[in-house]
């Protein structure tokens, strides 16, 4: 069992790292507008699209114009998703005749998908029509991911350029991100998923007589048939994994056998979660003309992920001590994975559930293949912490890396001072303005997570939603606000968050968690682009060494985690200690 556990983890990480490099270089080429094979297919499409939309592709934007374009696009995108939801009853492709979504839930969901959070206050198969899933949610899965990548690319250009006033053209970056990266990958991935059993149909839900009922005589009170929700799931699952969106087609998300039917589909979906975020590290290295910089960031991310993974694995595999006391066999053996199986699927066992929980929260994906709410206190604390670190361990496509670069800037700043030089990163001096923007980026999630949780525990509407008693209920609330502010989307799903209070408050927080960070990041990109570049000497702090990796990890843990220690003490930590005391 031990061997199998670690061979699955190794296989995953090795495959991921092998695929990341070529994809990363390819993506760098896409954003640098280098000639490539797909040009023949998409160049005419691009050209026509720009002409129709009145976009001058050759004209670059200042950071302010970039922000304006981005905000308008996202505003209309959100509006569209909102309208589709509140009118779905009148729209086609609604075989189950699902009703219009309530205003607060529609607001929450629109924001959730535009911000790449994909928090789901609703339950997919009982709320959203096929039309809404496709034309509303799926579209945002693509474009919100492309938006994140565009922001990242703009920031990288800030490092690349000297004395420049522009940071690229948002429309071009957005379009190329979808056409050359997301769409081809999603297309291929969809078919693989279908081959494994992910459904893809426009038929209404199926109704099938149940096996046991057929045999029963006399018939019992139980329902004699099973209604099985289906739909065009594969196309959406592919992009929700690739674009770190995570919004499931069905309520149980990737735990649902129709979203994630086999261990192989699970393996591929896991890969898809981290594929683009990992590859973007290489794109970054390629674009700043120093691949070592990309490797450094990727190594840092991988190490933190691995650490988190091992902690969670330990607690989940050890199982629930309270159940041991009841005579339940939780030991791992040849015939069972053992461990804490509440809220986990048999085909995934402990290792794949843990691997998923850590990657989905490290990346701001938020899809789940096991219920985090039922994780052991410390096993569940790790995903929570990964979100609270600021979604920088891989993070969302684009957003994870730009968040990580902000941490790198802070690490460089403190370390730079320690070696007696005005800190510089990739040749750019880090001065008051950069630190100010970095400070905002770090403050925003902390502010909204803590204040949101405080608001919820002070209000009846907030408190009533908890499903579990005691400190675990507090964890549920804390997790919800962390997930929203970090644009993750996963949940301690016992929390009944589909209420006006949570829909509106979390919706607002998701907006700030996304755009409150994009704005300072783009402002910084503008400022960096305008700076001169300082050539590196042996007096320059090298940012590609193991020491820097260590420093970066320390910075992330200190700045990201120290903030939440007291809150965590009142949630998962005390729950853990209480459980030990109950034995």
């Amino acid at each position: 069992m031990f061997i199998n556990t670690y061979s699955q983890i190794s296989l995953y990480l090795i495959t991921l790292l092998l695929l990341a490099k070529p994809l990363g270089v390819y993506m760098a080429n896409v954003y640098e507008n280098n000639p490539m094979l797909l040009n023949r297919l998409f160049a005419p499409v691009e050209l026509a699209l720009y002409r129709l939309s009145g976009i001058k592709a050759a004209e670059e934007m200042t950071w302010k114009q970039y922000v304006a374009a981005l905000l308008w696009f996202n505003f209309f995108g959100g509006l569209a998703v909102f309208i589709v939801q509140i009118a779905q009853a009148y729209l086609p492709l609604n075989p189950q005749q699902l009703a219009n979504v309530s205003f607060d839930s529609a607001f929450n969901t629109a924001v959730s998908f535009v911000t790449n959070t994909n928090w789901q206050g609703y339950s997919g198969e009982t709320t959203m029509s096929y039309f809404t899933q496709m034309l509303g949610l799926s579209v945002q899965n693509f474009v919100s991911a492309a938006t994140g990548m565009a922001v990242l690319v703009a920031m990288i250009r800030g490092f690349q350029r000297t004395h420049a006033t522009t940071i690229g053209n948002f429309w071009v970056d957005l379009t190329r991100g979808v056409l050359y990266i997301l769409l081809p990958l999603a297309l291929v991935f969809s078919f693989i998923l279908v081959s494994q059993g992910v459904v893809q149909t426009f038929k209404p839900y199926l109704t099938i007589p149940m096996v046991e009922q057929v045999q029963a005589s006399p018939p019992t009170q139980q329902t004699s048939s099973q209604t099985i929700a289906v739909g065009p799931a594969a196309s959406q699952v592919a992009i929700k994994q690739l674009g770190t969106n995570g919004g499931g087609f069905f309520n149980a998300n990737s735990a649902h056998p129709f979203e994630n039917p086999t261990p192989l589909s699970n393996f591929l979906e896991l890969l898809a979660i981290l594929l683009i975020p990992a590859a973007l590290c290489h794109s970054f290295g390629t674009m700043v003309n120093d691949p070592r910089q990309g490797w450094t960031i990727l190594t840092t991310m991988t190490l933190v992920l691995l650490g988190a993974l091992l902690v969670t694995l330990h607690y989940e595999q050890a199982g629930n001590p309270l159940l041991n006391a009841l005579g339940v066999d939780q030991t791992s053996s040849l015939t069972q994975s053992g461990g804490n199986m509440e809220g986990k699927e048999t085909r995934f066992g402990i290792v794949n559930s843990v691997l998923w929980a850590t990657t989905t929260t490290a990346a701001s994906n938020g899809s789940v293949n096991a219920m985090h709410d039922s994780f052991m206190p410390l096993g569940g604390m790790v995903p929570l912490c990964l979100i609270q670190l600021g979604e920088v361990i891989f993070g969302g496509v684009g957003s994870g890396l730009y968040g990580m670069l902000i941490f790198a800037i802070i690490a460089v700043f403190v370390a730079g001072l320690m070696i007696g030089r005005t800190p510089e990163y990739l040749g750019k001096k880090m001065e008051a303005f950069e630190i100010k923007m970095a400070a905002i980026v770090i403050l925003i999630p902390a502010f909204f997570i803590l204040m949101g949780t405080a608001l919820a525990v002070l209000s009846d509407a907030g408190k009533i939603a908890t499903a579990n008693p005691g400190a675990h209920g507090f964890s549920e609330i804390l997790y919800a606000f962390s997930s929203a502010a970090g644009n993750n989307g996963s949940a301690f799903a016992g929390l009944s968050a589909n209420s006006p209070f949570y829909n509106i408050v979390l919706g607002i927080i998701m907006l700030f968690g996304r755009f409150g960070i994009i704005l300072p990041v783009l402002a910084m990109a503008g400022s960096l682009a305008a700076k001169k570049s300082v050539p590196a000497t042996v007096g320059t702090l090298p940012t590609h060494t193991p020491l820097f990796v260590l420093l970066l990890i320390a910075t992330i843990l200190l700045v990201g985690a120290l903030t939440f220690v007291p809150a965590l003490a009142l949630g998962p930590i005390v729950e853990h200690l209480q459980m030990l005391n109950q034995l």
Partner: protein
Amino acid sequence: MMQHIKPALFMLLFFTVLTGIAYPLLVTFGAQILFPAQANGSLIVNDKHTLGSELIGQSFTRPEYFWGRPSATSSSAYNAAASSGSNLGPSNPNLRELVQQRIKVLRELDPSNTQPIPVDLVTASASGLDPHISSAAVLFQLNRVAAVRHLPLDKIEALVTQCTEARQLGVLGEPRVNILRLNLALDNRRSCLE
């Protein structure tokens, strides 16, 4: 500011058509041709009767069947129109009570069985639709099913072996048994080998 409105609307329209309509239609079209069985829910069909979906578990509560994972879906167990886990926290007293109850039922059904109860047999799955249980959970129920059905143990063991799915590609996932398929095989309605 205003110069971005037109491009924003056009781009949104373009991407809606491309990724919201063309893309899912293309995938559906392709899937229905290439993998029609999977795309439509991996249904188990026998003599034109649909017996269920291979991927969606069903509720079994009678002693002659192998039981699957407890399901926490609303209104009834294995409600495939509303997937859901229990979301019970590990320290929640309700969880302990539920597990205790499930243990009690299983023990009462087969008092002679003194093996420890495999964890997946008493804990709810994430989706509430988990079609599998671990081999350990099957083995735990072996004697009971054999006794109720008055079948020799080795015959059932052979069926279980047929219905056991190994790790995919030898590495991925966990060894497991599809309960619906095993029970259908028991009922001689469809062999696991088909």
